[in-house]
């Protein structure tokens, strides 16, 4: 007989949840990197600020549910979802963003900045994975939790994203 162990719902201890001071520390720690993440996704600084503000408002509303340790990943997940919603609502595609990308590239001829600009070529998922991996230093498992993907899926997405970026850099070198 196969016995199934039922998982009992664990009650979250109140001291593990966010309070006012912990919320403020979360703001101080993560607001900048969240803004950077959204800006790299949308190439719009003001929009990035707005979306991050929305995410923190949601965090404040759900402070009774969110655990302190998971607050960063929770914030990234919400910001990612908000960004995707915004891109879908405003029908911004890679082609439409190309213009922004070009202007971004012209102003910043540095290789790292070109690379940051070339993220436009990637899909939203690929871009967010690259950003989370390179800028935030998350591992596959954490990225999977944020974007609701399996570890192997994250790995495949990342491999394809890097392949695209590499090809873009090679093309640029040939042109220059």
């Amino acid at each position: 007989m196969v016995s199934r162990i039922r998982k009992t719902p664990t009650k979250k201890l109140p001291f593990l949840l966010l309070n006012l001071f912990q919320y403020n520390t979360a703001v101080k720690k993560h607001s900048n990197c969240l803004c950077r993440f959204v800006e790299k996704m949308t190439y719009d600084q003001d929009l990035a600020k707005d979306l991050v503000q929305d995410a923190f408002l949601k965090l404040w509303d759900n402070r009774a549910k969110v655990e302190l340790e998971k607050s960063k990943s929770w914030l990234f997940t919400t910001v990612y979802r908000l960004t995707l919603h915004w891109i879908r609502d405003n029908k911004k595609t890679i082609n439409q963003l190309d213009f922004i990308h070009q202007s971004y590239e012209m102003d910043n001829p540095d290789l790292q900045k070109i690379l940051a600009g070339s993220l436009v070529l990637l899909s939203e998922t690929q871009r967010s994975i690259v950003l989370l991996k390179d800028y935030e230093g998350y591992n596959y498992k954490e990225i999977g939790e944020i974007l609701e993907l399996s570890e192997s899926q994250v790995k495949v997405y990342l491999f394809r994203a890097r392949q695209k970026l590499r090809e873009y850099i090679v093309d640029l070198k040939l042109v220059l």
Partner: protein
Amino acid sequence: MKITKANIEQYIFEYHEGILTTKESNLLMDFIHQNPQYESLFSTWAMSYAHVEQEEKEYQVEKMLLRNPFWHFGKFIVPSMLFLACFGYFLLNDSDLNNEQKSIKKEFPKTENQILKEKNTEQVHEYINRIPVYENSKSRTRITPLFKTVNEMAVSQNKKDSIPYFQVVMNENPIYEKQNSDTNHLIVPKIESNSELKTIDNRVDSMIEKQQHKTHKKIKLAEKIEPINSDF
């Protein structure tokens, strides 16, 4: 697993990701040395990794997002400080009191006024219960004793204040009995002799006796008694 042209990119990717073991990475490096055409591939893969810029941007969103506790709000600075000061002063004073002082404070005897007040209120309540109520069943009038409020009577130590005033009130539902019975009724509750009651005023007992005596004579009262003074 052997490194071939088909899977070289996979190996380079994993090498840069840091997933490869030392043995596998050594194998990869040997393969690249043996096949130098893959060196450019190796270097371009390395370039595909974005790095965090040294000078990070400050977005200055913190001010908008930070939530201050209630005592930081401008409106509440003064009252909260006052409250804290008062609370602290109270705590300090309270801690200075010894346990003996506290016990003395708790068992502080009642004042004479308080005792008198309590006694008077009890006596007044007893007295009220014993006051007779006059009724005229035929007429529309009813005579009821009107007191000062119990508290007023209790506070004033003057015993004259406890004498009742009478008020004439219109009877809303008069009881019409037989035409011949023109007599007035005096409803007197049972009076229990109480020696303590006499302490208030001896005249009260004498009043009741007089009233009882009068009722035996069947006094006829006017059918309508209209008070001249409203405060009668």
